[in-house]
């Protein structure tokens, strides 16, 4: 059986969301973010790992039987894995497709790496980051004013 045939064995989605072009290895991390949203508790989900991709070689893929992802979940995913595609499926057809980009600002989605930052030392202070270099994906903490690479910052899981 070829890789393509194997992919076809995964159930097709009639109405729902497909998160596509996930770099291999990130599927589980993204599923983890989705799983923590209380609204996702009863949603049917399939996770595919290491699918064949003509563009990427390999990719992960998630299918969800629900209408929309919450904006917070999308923002969270965009921080972990910018550049992936989200497709909205209606009657087996792609109704809408968009590539998610890293956000221009992220309030209370990421933890600051500076141990002396007030967001790490005071209770009840939300973090807030602003994109200062889109190309290099660098974000500035709006409190301690230090600049970090997105890949080094850890998301806050609610």
């Amino acid at each position, binding site marked *: 059986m070829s890789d393509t045939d194997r992919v076809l064995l995964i159930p097709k989605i009639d109405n729902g969301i497909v998160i596509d072009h996930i770099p291999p290895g990130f599927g589980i991390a993204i599923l983890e973010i989705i799983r923590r949203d209380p609204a996702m508790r009863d949603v049917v989900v399939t996770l595919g790992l290491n699918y064949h991709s003509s563009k990427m070689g390999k990719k992960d893929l998630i299918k969800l039987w629900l209408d929309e992802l919450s904006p917070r979940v999308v923002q969270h995913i965009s921080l972990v894995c910018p550049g992936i595609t989200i497709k909205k499926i209606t009657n087996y057809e792609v109704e809408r497709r968009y590539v998610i980009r890293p956000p221009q600002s992220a309030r209370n989605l990421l933890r600051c790496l*500076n141990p*002396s*930052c*007030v*967001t790490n*030392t*005071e*209770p*009840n*202070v939300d973090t807030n980051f602003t994109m200062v270099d889109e190309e290099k994906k660098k974000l500035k*903490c*709006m*409190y*301690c*004013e*230090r*600049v970090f690479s997105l890949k080094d910052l850890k998301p806050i899981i609610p």
Partner: protein
Amino acid sequence: MKRDLISLDDLSLEDIRGYLDLATHLETVPDERKLTRLPGAIMMTMFYEPSTRTRLSFEAAMCRLGGRAIGFAAADATSVAKGESLVDTVRTVENYADILVIRHPKEGTARVAGEISLLPVINAGDGANQHPSQTLLDLYTIQRLFGRIGNLKIAFVGDLKYSRTVHSLIRALIKFSHLDFVLVSPESLRLPTYLVPPPEQCMDVTFRETQSLEEAIQSCDLVYMTRVQRERFPDSLEFERVKDAYCLDADILQGAPSHLRIMHPLPRVNEIAYSVDRTTYASYFTQVRNGLIMRQAILLTLLGVAP
């Protein structure tokens, strides 16, 4: 909309010029008139770590404008020691005053206070991050010494790696144009590269490194000295080797150009000998005086009161 002074990064060149112009104007306002500017106003100084100079300067500035200062000078003397959060402390003390001045060892604290409070908030130092009134008084001193901020060759000497004062002043100066910076530091205390902006982001600003203080003295208009702190050196032998390399005395200043000026954020330890104080180069006590004027300009600006 209330105004805060939290970070130099929030200020445009016009904002900075606004503070400089107001301070310049205040030089001409008679003392008795100043006393009528903020009668009855109360400034709250919330100092979670001691900084006597900064606190006294703010308090004197407020008193000279006719207002009063209250506050605390160490966190252990307050309910903070009993575990009160910053948010609760700010919400409590803002009922007692018209403006808050906060100093705190954790970076970003003043920003949080500014977001919570309905009052104007002044950052008087948040850890290694910002101390904007120091930066503004340094800019004001440069303007007064040379009549301009631009067309100047400025040497920064000493601990360029950790000095918040130097980092903040460089970040402010590059908003101006036609400046040449000469960086004089031991190898282990060089200016972090992220502070050197790409050339296309600033107007005619250059950076050059040297290890020779003598050369900097001969070629620059201004020498900005900093303290080299022993605790920054993992190896005390290295500290002993470099500490005197960056020590100014009357001898090393022999034959320096007459327009040269020397600044230092104070307190000094050994890096400027007392023999320098009597020379025409010494401008560090002028800085202290200018700090008082600049803090008056800041209080008037944030409280929206005309000079």
